[in-house]
C-alpha cells in the first residue's frame, strides 16, 4: 500500500488525472455568497488568500482553487478579515496551524536566505566575474617573444 502514502488522501478523484499529463486544476467558479459585502474587505481577503497555498492542490492559492479545504480556508480568511484582523494576524493564524507550507511566499529566515538572496547573489557573481575577466585581460596584450619573432618574419616576408 505504498502508493497510498504518496497519492494519499483525496487521491481517488485525482488518480484518473494523474495518469495523464493534465494539470490537476480544480476551478474556482465559486459561490458569490461567500464573498464579503464590503468590497474593500473582500479585496483585502482576496489579497491574503492569494498568498496562501491550497494545501491539497499543487501550487494554487486558495483563491484559485475550488477544493473543499480551500473553500473552508477562504471562509476562515473572510471571517477573520470581517472581524477586523490585520493581514499579518490572518496569515499568522494559518501558519500556526499549517506551518510555512501554507505561505506561497516563504518568510525570510536563515534557511530561505539563499532563496531570497539568489537574485542579488546571481547578479553580483555575474558582474564580479565579468569585472575580473575585464581587469585581468588588458585591452591589448603585449606580444610574446615568439609572436614578435613571427611578426618580424611576416613583415620581412613582405
Amino acid at each position: 500500500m505504498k502508493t497510498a502514502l504518496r497519492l494519499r488522501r483525496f487521491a481517488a478523484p485525482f488518480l484518473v488525472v494523474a495518469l495523464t499529463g493534465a494539470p490537476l486544476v480544480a476551478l474556482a467558479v465559486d459561490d458569490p455568497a461567500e464573498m464579503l459585502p464590503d468590497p474593500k474587505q473582500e479585496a483585502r481577503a482576496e489579497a491574503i488568500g492569494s498568498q496562501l497555498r491550497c494545501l491539497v492542490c499543487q501550487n494554487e492559492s486558495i483563491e484559485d482553487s475550488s477544493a473543499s479545504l480551500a473553500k473552508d480556508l477562504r471562509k476562515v480568511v473572510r471571517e477573520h478579515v470581517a472581524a477586523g484582523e490585520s493581514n499579518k494576524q490572518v496569515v499568522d493564524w494559518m501558519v500556526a496551524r499549517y506551518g510555512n507550507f501554507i505561505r506561497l511566499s516563504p518568510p525570510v529566515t536563515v534557511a530561505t536566505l539563499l532563496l531570497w538572496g539568489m537574485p542579488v547573489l546571481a547578479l553580483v557573481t555575474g558582474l564580479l566575474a565579468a569585472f575580473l575577466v575585464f581587469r585581468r585581460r588588458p585591452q591589448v596584450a603585449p606580444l610574446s617573444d615568439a609572436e614578435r619573432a613571427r611578426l618580424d618574419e611576416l613583415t620581412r616576408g613582405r
Partner: protein
Amino acid sequence: MSPELGRFALSLACVFALAQAILPLIGAQRRDRRLMAIAPGLAVGQLVALAASFLCLVNAAITNDFSVSNILENSAVAKPLLYKITGVWGNHEGSILLWAMILGICGAAVAAFGRNLPSALRARVLAVLGGVAAGFELFCLTTSDPFDRVWPAPLDGQGMNPLLQDPGLAFHPPILYTGYVGFAVPFAFAIAALIEGRVDAAWGRWVRPWAVAAWAFLTCGIALGSWWSYYVLGWGGYWFWDPVENASLIPWLSGTALMHSAIVVEKREALKIWTVLLAIGTFSFSLSGTFLVRSGILNSVHAFAQDPARGIFILGLLGLVIGGSLVLFAWRAPSLTAGGLFAPVSREGALVLNNILLCSLCAVVLTGTMYPPFMSLLFGKTISVGKPFFDAATIPLAIPLFAVMGFGPMLPWKRAQLWPVMRRLWVVALVTLAAFAVSLWGLSGVLPVLCATFAVWVIATSATDVANRIALFREPFSRSLQRARSLPRSAFGAALAHAGVGVTVLGLAAMSQAQHRVVEVHIGQTERLAGYDWTLTNVQTEPGPNYVAMVATIEIRHNGHIVTVMHPSKRSFNSQNQTTTEVSIHTNGLSDLYGVIGDRHGTDADPTYVLRLHYNPLAPWMWFGALIMAIGGALSLSDRRMRIGAPRRAPLADVVAAE
C-alpha cells in the same frame, strides 16, 4: 502494422542509434573516412525506424486496438479521431516515443543540412546525438514500453481526460518538445568541440542557427501552453509559476543567453568557453526539468504518472548525459584558448550583460523551483515557493534586461561610446517618456508602470535600430529601400524578436490590471464590469458526442450597443465522471472579455447561475508577442549567412552586414 512491429522498429532504431553513437566517434578519432561517412546514413535510418514505430502506435490508436495497454488507458471508441491521434503523446510512454522521434529528426536534419561541415565535426555531432537517442530509446523499451499488451483485450478503452481534448493542447507537446530536443544539437556541437579541443568563429556560426531554431520552437511551445491554460482552465490567469512551466522557462532563459553568446563567438571569437557551457547547460535543463517532473519529486499541477523506479532510470540517464558532458567540460575546457578582446562598453559588453541578467533570472527560477524539495531533504522543513515569490524576485531583474535590450544592438563591436548612441535615441526617449506618463495614468503599481515603460522602450529602439541601418528619413526613400533590401535578414529578425519581447511585456503589464467579478444571477439579470454590461439571457442543455453541456448565452453591451454574444458552457462527461468548463472569450485585439459559467443554484422554478466574468486588457498581446519573437527567429534563420556551412558572402556584402 501491429504493435509488435512498432516495438521491433523501436529496437531497430535503438540499434541504429547505438551504432551511430560509437562508429563515427571511432572514425573521427582514427581519421577513418569510411566510418565517419556512415553517420548520416545511420541517422536517417534511425529516423525512419522511429517514424515507423510511431506510426504503429498511431495506427493502434486509430483502429482502437485496446489490447495495447497504452491505448486502453488513454483512448476510447467514442473519442474523436483527431484526439485519438494526438492522444498518442498525451501520456508518459507515448510522449517519450515522440521525444525520441524528434531527436531522430534533429539527427537527420544535421545529416541533411550539415553537408558542408568538416567531416570529423559532423561525425562527432551525430555520434553525440545518437548516444542521447539510444538512451531514450532504451528507456522507452525497458521501463516505458508504449506497445505493452493486455490480454484479454477489453471492448472499450478507459478514455482520455476531457481537459486534454483540445486542439491547443494537442499541438503544444510536439512544439514544446521540438524546442527542448532542438537544444540537443547545440549540445552535440559543444561536446564535439570539447572532444576536438577547438572552438572558433565557424563553430559559432554553425551552432547559432540550431540554437535559434530550438529557441523559436520553445518560445511557441511555452506560449501555446500558457494560452491553453488561459482559455481552457478558465481561471482567468495564464501562468502558474508551476514547476512544469518553470521547467520550460529555465531552458528558455539559458537558451536565449546561448543564442546571444553564440553571436559573440561567431563575430569576435570571445566567450567561447562560456558558450560551450551554456550549450551543455541548456540541454541539461531541458532534460532534467521535464524528467524530474515525471519522477514525482517536484510538486506540480501537471502530474504525469509518477513512478520512482522509472525515476531511477531517468536519473541514471541524466547522470550519464549531463555528468559525462560536464566531466568532459572540466577536462577539456581549460585547454580552450580565450578569444577576442573587447572593451566593457561595446556590443560584446552589452551581450555579456544580457547573459549575466538572463542567467541570473535562470538561477532565480531554478532556485525557486528546486528549493522546496531540497529544504525538505536537508532540513526536513516544508515550504512553498509560489507566484508571490517569483513575481517579486524576477521582475526587478527583468527590467534592467529590457533596458539593455534597447541600446545593446546599436553599440558597435569591440569598443563603443555610449553618448553618440544615446544621442541618436532622442525620438525614442520622447516616446518612452510619453509611455511612462501614459502608464502612470493608466496602470497602478510601480512594477507594471516600469515594465510597460521599458516595453515601449524596447519596441521603439528596435524600430529605430532598423530605421538607422537603412538610413530612413536621412536619405531619399528609394535609397533606404535599397538599403533595407541589402540589410541581412538576421538584423530584421533580431529587431523583430526584440520588439516581440516588448509586445509580450506590454501584455503582461496590462494584465496586472485585469478585473474580474464572480456573480450569481437570474436569467435576464445584468451585471457591470469594466464599463461593459453583461446580461445572462438564456441557459440551455445541449448533448455532445461524449458529454452533456450546459450552455449559457451572455449578451455584452457597451453604452447600450451590443458588443458580442458569448456562449460559455460547462460539460459533464459520461465516461470519467468529470466536468470541464468551456470558456468563452471575445477579443478585439486590445482586450479580452472572458466569461465562464459555474454552478446552478436556486430552485427549478427560479434557477440562478454563478458566472465568472473577466476583463483582461491587452491579454492577446502576451501570445502575439511570443509569435513575433518566433517569427523573428525564423526570419533570422532564412538569412543565408545563418545557413550551416553556407559559403561566406562576397567581401562587399560583409561590409554592409558589419553594422
